């Protein structure tokens, strides 16, 4: 699975996710990536793209949950991302990337690694695989 989230200079967030799914999957199997609110979500607060055990991400409505806890609990982006990865996956394995309308970027995963890269206008840039 691959994904990208971005917030532009107008503070507009967007998210996109694309995948081939699971190796040896049944034909017709649909995972989390095309499900808005599970694998992908964006609103005025943030943009989120997820990857991992699709079935766990669907159960957790993971991407929407990041936006929901920001909206309802007033959490900041990284706090919200930490919360959903730590508390909402019920043992499932997944990772996600997210941006906020304030130009923040966050990433978190409970797997042993995640292919990821992020950058902000402030000059922060990171590309990594392992924890």
């Amino acid at each position: 699975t691959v994904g990208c989230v971005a917030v532009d200079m107008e503070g507009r967030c967007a998210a996109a996710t694309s995948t081939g799914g699971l190796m040896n999957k049944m034909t017709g199997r649909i995972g989390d990536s095309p499900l808005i609110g599970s694998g992908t979500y964006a609103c005025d607060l943030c943009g989120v793209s997820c990857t991992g055990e699709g079935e766990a991400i669907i159960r957790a409505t993971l991407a929407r949950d990041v936006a929901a806890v920001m909206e309802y609990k007033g959490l900041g982006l990284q706090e919200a991302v930490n919360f959903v990865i730590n508390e909402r996956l019920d043992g499932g394995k997944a990772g996600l990337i997210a941006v906020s309308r304030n130009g923040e970027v966050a990433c978190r995963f409970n797997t042993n690694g995640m292919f990821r890269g992020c950058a902000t206008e402030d000059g922060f840039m990171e590309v990594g695989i392992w924890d």
Partner: protein
Amino acid sequence: MGRWAIAVHGGAGVDPNLPQQRQEEAKQLLTRCLNLGISALRSNLPAIDVVELVVRELESDPLFNSGRGSALTEKGTVEMEASIMDGPNRRCGAVSGLTTVKNPISLARLVMEKSPHSYLAFSGAEEFARKQGVELEQNDYFITEDNVGMLKLAKEANSILFDYRIPLKTCSAGAAAAMESPLQMNGLPISVYAPE
């Protein structure tokens, strides 16, 4: 004016024994895509255009599990899926079951922009693709030799693999390694997972 930010990913969960060269290739692709997105943001492109642009680039490279280089179904074919969402108005588009569309994320974008719906799948999505005139490929364009080998091993392991690939070494070596590493993922010892 706000400040821009961007993040990309190429899948979660990595074989702990991923060869250094594969790690470098992955980082170079991520860096290239990140820089593509950064220059688009600096040119004041809207975020929805930036995420589509970057995911198209990731789909076209066989290194990660999307577009070319997608994981295979039990029948050895490719069924791709994608979604895209624009924050300010929460418009969204999604597709599933694609077998010939070169860049699924762009078809998802067209569902959002050119259809009255949010999600099209399988034959309906393929028919929409033809009407929209997006770039099409034969299904085997998306299939790499690596993945054909990995499907074979997945079948031997009698398992469905989550966004990963099995080392091209034999699965039993993975099982042996599993004895040392109790870490499990999707019901299988992490060591049977190959680099993505």
